[in-house]
């Protein structure tokens, strides 16, 4: 793509950057006497490989935001991790997020960065952009002030941003510009792992394209892994290498993006893909009956069964395990592969 593509992953390390095992994170609320457990993340296992874009999809309140908050070690009460583990491997530097919080703290931004949803509000409204760079990145770079400033400016230029934005306040920038600044901020330390949480959601379509391109380009250049979260399946189709589908706090299916779009194994995946608008298709999309389940009081068995068009008796009684799927991924469904995409 460009002459600046000169970063390669370090050799000699394992292929997985992130390993999540049976992670459980609940909101536990004890207010006015009502104890509620909201099982936002309920037994999820997954791995993210080096130099890949890993997508997480799902409806709103499916727990995807909770999942990435949990894997980034960014939860605050009332949310608690009640089981499982999150482990990173940054080029041989192993971190168990919930066992070694100090190590995790040190790795932030250097090895692991974050592009957040809602570009409007992720920057401190009363401080100039340069302060954000100072706060976030300075201590990781080991540079003096001047060199750091030069580094930031050249980084911004690489991303097509005028270094003058450093002197601006967030409110003086447009939405797209702010998102670019955020991306610049997240990539300035050249981290191995980037979490992108709906980075394009609030942007108009053209800007979206632009930002996606930018993310892809930076990822390619740095060789980082990205966990990319969005409910927009078309974005996943455009950018991710592998894709995980979340439903009600659990994974429904995981696999290579392209294969999943071609041949979804889980009825819910099939539904999500089917609801994508396609050029030339004028038929009305059939929307799924019912609403997403309450995470405080989820249905028994397979959590999708009340809305599933092909549910059988067993689905309401037993919880389906994540098992290898036909397309080289994993799926949690007793009738995996039985539904075809039109």
């Amino acid at each position, binding site marked *: 793509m460009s002459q600046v593509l000169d970063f390669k992953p370090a050799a000699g390390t394992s292929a997985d950057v992130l390993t999540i095992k049976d992670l459980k994170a609940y909101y536990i609320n004890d207010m006015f006497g009502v104890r509620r457990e909201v099982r936002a993340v309920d037994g999820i296992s997954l791995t993210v490989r080096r130099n890949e874009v890993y997508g997480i999809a799902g409806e709103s309140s499916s727990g995807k935001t909770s999942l990435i908050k949990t894997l*980034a070690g960014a939860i605050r009460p009332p949310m608690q991790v009640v089981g499982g583990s999150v482990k990173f491997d940054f080029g041989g530097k192993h971190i168990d997020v919930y066992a070694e919080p100090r190590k995790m703290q040190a*790795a932030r931004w250097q090895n692991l960065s974050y592009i*957040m949803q809602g570009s409007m509000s992720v920057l*401190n409204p009363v401080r100039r952009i340069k302060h954000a760079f100072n*706060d976030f990145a300075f201590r990781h770079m080991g540079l003096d002030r001047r060199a750091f400033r030069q580094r930031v400016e050249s980084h911004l230029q690489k991303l097509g941003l005028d270094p003058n*934005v450093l002197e601006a306040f967030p409110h003086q920038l*447009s939405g797209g510009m702010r998102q670019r600044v955020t991306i610049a901020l997240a990539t300035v330390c050249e981290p191995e792992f980037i979490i992108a949480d709906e980075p394009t959601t609030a942007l108009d379509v053209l800007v979206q394209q632009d930002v996606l391109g930018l993310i892809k380009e930076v990822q390619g250049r740095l060789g980082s892994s990205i966990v990319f979260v969005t409910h927009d399946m078309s974005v996943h189709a455009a950018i991710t290498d592998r894709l995980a589908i979340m439903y009600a706090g659990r994974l429904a299916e995981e696999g290579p993006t392209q294969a999943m779009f071609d041949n979804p194994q889980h009825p819910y995946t099939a539904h999500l893909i089917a609801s994508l608008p396609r050029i030339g298709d004028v038929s009305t999309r059939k929307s799924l009956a019912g609403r997403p389940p309450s995470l405080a009081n989820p249905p028994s068995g397979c959590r999708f069964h009340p809305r599933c068009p092909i549910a059988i008796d067993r689905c309401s009684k037993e919880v389906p395990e994540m098992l290898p799927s036909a397309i080289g991924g994993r799926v949690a469904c007793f009738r995996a592969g039985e539904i075809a995409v039109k």
Partner: protein
Amino acid sequence: MFLPGSDRFGGRTRLFCSVQIGMYMNGFLIYVAKRFGQFVFVVVTGVTLAFLIAHFSPVDPVEQTLSLVTNFGATDPRSVEILRASLRELYGTEGSMISQYFVFWGRVIRGDFGPSLSAFPTPVMTIISRALPWTIGLLTLATIISWVIGNLLGAIAGYFRTSRSIKIVGLLVMALQPIPTYITGLTLLIIFGFLWPILPISGGAQLNLEPAASWGYISSVIQYGTLPALTLVLVGMGGWFVSMRSLVSNIVTDDFVVYSELAGVPSRTVFSKYVARNAMLPQVTGLALSLGNVFGGAVIVEFIFNYPGIGKLMVAGIYAGDYSLVLGVTTFSVIAVATAVFLIDILYPLIDPRVKLG
């Protein structure tokens, strides 16, 4: 000013909005003009209100002076008659209400509220200007201290919600807040003036000290101001504490705070530069809005501790039936409070870059 877009993205300048630094000054002037308009509106309303109330006073300044003069000693009825005639001439309370209203405005603008009756012939303005430094000093200090401590504790309590010791301090601070100023002040007076007499309970500074920039004088002023200021601080900081705590506990869930935490920005920086810095902004506005009440508190505190400020002056004026003094102090305090609010308002853009200057 437009930032040039990069070639790579086809020069999409539409992405980049202008950085409006050049517009800043112009917008600031408009903002100041608006605030000034509000200031003038407040002053006019307050002064008119004071004039109207005072105008319907049953207190006749001439008779008031007479009764002050003839309160003691032998008084010959005939001499009182002569004195009354000469006083009528002096005060000149003639003319229609409208003309008196304009005469009053003339006086307000000139800062001339006439001679005080209880301190005849000293001008009211002279008396006010003597009392003013005390009140300004006490109020500024106490307000800043209570604002800083209240907000600091509130911010700490909002940010570090789980700490037990902070919860206890928070409860104490909040429990003090609804107690009326007089009761807090009287309690402090009983404790530190009566049961354990270690602090002066009356006056503004040591006797026989000339105001000077000497350590002796300043330390004396501090000592005499301790109990009044402490009262105002104890009463004042609870409100700041409560509102700051709730502001902070809202702000900590804001994206930019969460983001900075995710980024591993040290929690001290997050607390001070992200949380407190943002939560402070509404508190500055709140400070401006609360000044009127703070001034009311000063009246009480000065009364309790015999502190030689504006508030005590006003109460003394009422007790002495000093018509011109009371009217002067009221008018003056309306203007003073409005001015302070105006000052805070125009300084606000300096701390909040987002303020809509248009």
